[in-house]
């Protein structure tokens, strides 16, 4: 994860403006703005900004990217109309959760991801997280239950016109709950 992404996500998730964070951290707002746009910063500066948002940096015993990082990539892919890349990142998100167990699986999903700008993808991401955490008896982060992450009309996750429709029996319960009709084995490795 880049420093800019980390700072931007911590700030937006905490609901603070750059100005508010700047005041608490004792750093110019323009510096925060530059960092969020990709300017490098030293570790102490990043730590001060992140702490000012009410978050802290921790080291986790895993190299697997967390949900929020992968969703940033998915948002980038979708913005570039690269849905094939987006689906690889979505599958990687699923695979990363499956590869970890217990607390670490849960921690990968703690930080609220940004919206991809596409309600179907946002609901699909929430469904995957709910599915994978529930199967490992891990408590769900609050963002998973946000109403913006459930579709009011059940919608098939289809990337290709040749994709067949699943029946309800083919769809994990958590996907149905979020209004997404996706085949269970789309998220299973052969």
């Amino acid at each position, binding site marked *: 994860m880049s420093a800019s992404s980390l700072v931007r996500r911590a700030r937006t998730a905490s609901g603070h403006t750059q100005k508010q964070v700047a005041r608490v951290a004792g750093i110019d707002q323009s510096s925060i703005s530059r960092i969020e746009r990709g300017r490098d910063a030293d570790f102490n500066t990043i730590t001060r900004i992140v702490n000012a948002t009410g978050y802290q940096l921790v080291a986790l015993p*895993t190299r697997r990217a967390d949900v929020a990082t992968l969703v940033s990539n998915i948002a980038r892919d979708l913005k570039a109309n690269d849905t094939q890349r987006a689906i690889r990142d979505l599958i990687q998100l699923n*695979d990363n959760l499956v590869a970890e167990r217990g607390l670490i699986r849960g921690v990968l999903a703690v930080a609220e991801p940004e919206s991809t700008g596409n309600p179907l993808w946002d609901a699909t991401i929430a469904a995957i997280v709910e599915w994978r955490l529930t199967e490992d008896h891990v408590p769900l982060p609050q963002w998973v239950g946000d109403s913006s992450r459930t579709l009011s009309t059940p919608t098939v996750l289809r990337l290709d016109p040749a994709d*067949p429709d699943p029946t309800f029996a083919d769809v994990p319960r958590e996907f149905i709950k979020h209004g997404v009709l996706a085949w269970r084995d*789309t998220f299973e490795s052969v």
Partner: protein
Amino acid sequence: MTSLTRADLIDGLRDLVAQLRADGAVVGIRLVGGAALALRYFDRGVTQDIDMLHVQPGTDAEVVRAATRVADRHNWDADWVNFRVTEADAIPTLGREVEWEVIHDSDGIVIEVASKEAMLAMKLRASRPVRDTDDIRKLVALCQIDTLETAENLYESFYPGDGLTDRAVTQLTNILREEVAPRDLGVPSFTL
């Protein structure tokens, strides 16, 4: 650990080859799955889950040891290269023999990928909507399959006695409704 581009994958394999060479290993590596498709047949992203068959000659342990060091350098998880596909009922073993295409052969390190026909048979066996459909579409074109019957015959040649699932038939039927022209999807060459 995020998904990889074809360039990331080639970088990782290049490092793996260099590490194996430094270790003095003599190994034969066979790739299937998304990595094989990306390296040989068409540009696509891959998850950090590179499917290998058991190493022959050489040992899986030699490759795992080298792959772990590569993972450290790239900040990837140690099991970015794995042999899980050999535990699944995916590799055709009972029918038509899988042909392999050499993509690297130097200093005792050989890397091969499964033929496009075998890749299509394996993808049709999985036929996971959203995940495999685009691969099937491209492999159908590369293999110059233009009827459902031809696809079924190819599948059954690799998996004798097995028929395509209804789901795979639906995918193929939908794909074949469009004009399928033989094409070279053309991935740039590379050296490891």
